[in-house]
């Protein structure tokens, strides 16, 4: 009975370990997320419409990655990408919308 319980526990622990290994983000995952965020940031830069918060998130991503926390790093990189994309959308929308605000 005791042996059976130990075997069961070992199986559960092994399965958990495998799952964790499968879910944990790698350095490659981070690099890919970071590259996507940087590309969006550069696109916003070409439109002269970067947001300061994009850089804040990119720095946080780098810091987390340097500490080996790739899950956290990817979260920051994805946030940076979302911010950069929002700034691009803002620039595109404002390319014509500014005219509506002009004093007539």
């Amino acid at each position, binding site marked *: 009975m005791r042996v059976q319980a130990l075997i069961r526990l070992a199986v559960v622990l092994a399965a958990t370990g495998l799952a964790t290994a499968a879910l944990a983000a790698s350095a490659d995952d981070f690099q890919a997320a970071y590259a996507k965020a940087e590309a969006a940031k550069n696109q916003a830069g070409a439109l002269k419409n*970067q*947001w*300061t918060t994009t850089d804040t998130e990119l720095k946080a991503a780098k810091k987390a990655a340097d500490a080996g926390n790739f899950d956290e790093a990817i979260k920051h990189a994805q946030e940076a990408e979302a*911010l950069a994309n929002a700034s691009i959308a*803002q620039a595109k929308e*404002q390319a014509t*919308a500014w005219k509506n*605000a002009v004093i007539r």
Partner: protein
Amino acid sequence: MRRAVVLALALLCLAAPPVSAADSINPKADSKAFRDYFTKRFPKVPLNDFVNGPYSMDADLRKQWVEIDAFPPYQFALDKGKQMFETPFKNGKTYADCFPNKGIGIRQNYPYFDAKSGEVITLDVALNQCRQANGEEPLDYTKDDMAALTAYMAFTSRGKPFDIKIPNDPRALAAYRNGEEYFYTRRGQLNFSCASCHVQSPGDHIRTEVLAPALGVVAALPIYRSEWGGMGTTSRRLITCNSQVRGVPLKPEDELYRDVEYYLSYMSNGLPISGPGARP
């Protein structure tokens, strides 16, 4: 055949995008509308008082300013600027040699459109051009020496009305239009334009600050800001505005910053130079 031509022309007219007032460039009409907007919104503020920014909007703030101005915080910069202005370069020449009327009482004519380079030249840029033409290093465009020099030149021009010219040159009109576009374009994570504060909300508070009206807003520059604990140029002011709305600022004296100064200075034509100024 004639019917076909008429039909084609009619279809062409329908297909063409409507031309709105915003698409034509008419600085004179813009300036009138701009001024009318502020004078109608603030009928008790005398026209020339708009150059005093937040003090034209808030009586209590004005009282504090009057007290502060007995010992103006920009005085040290003013003295330094005068000394710099009068000190010869290594080649023996001075700033006076680079400017009309030896640089005295000319602030109201800047920025101007330079037909040779096809760009807007601000007083700050003209000062650095003067330095470089005389073998000196250019100054930082945001504070310290540049703010001191422009403070002195503004002081010698106090009371003189802005007289900004927009020549009938497509490049000058484009610069004017770019400045206007920059002024009205929302940017930064907070989604604010310059106009959000200085057209839609002058006299209102953002935290403890009273927002200045856009009419005459450039007349007091450069300014001593208590928030900065020192002097700042037009570039510094624009950089601060961009950062405050969480937008990445442009480089000091970027072409777009010069264009927006051109636009705002033209909007202020006829209003007196009041710089250097002091702001909270």
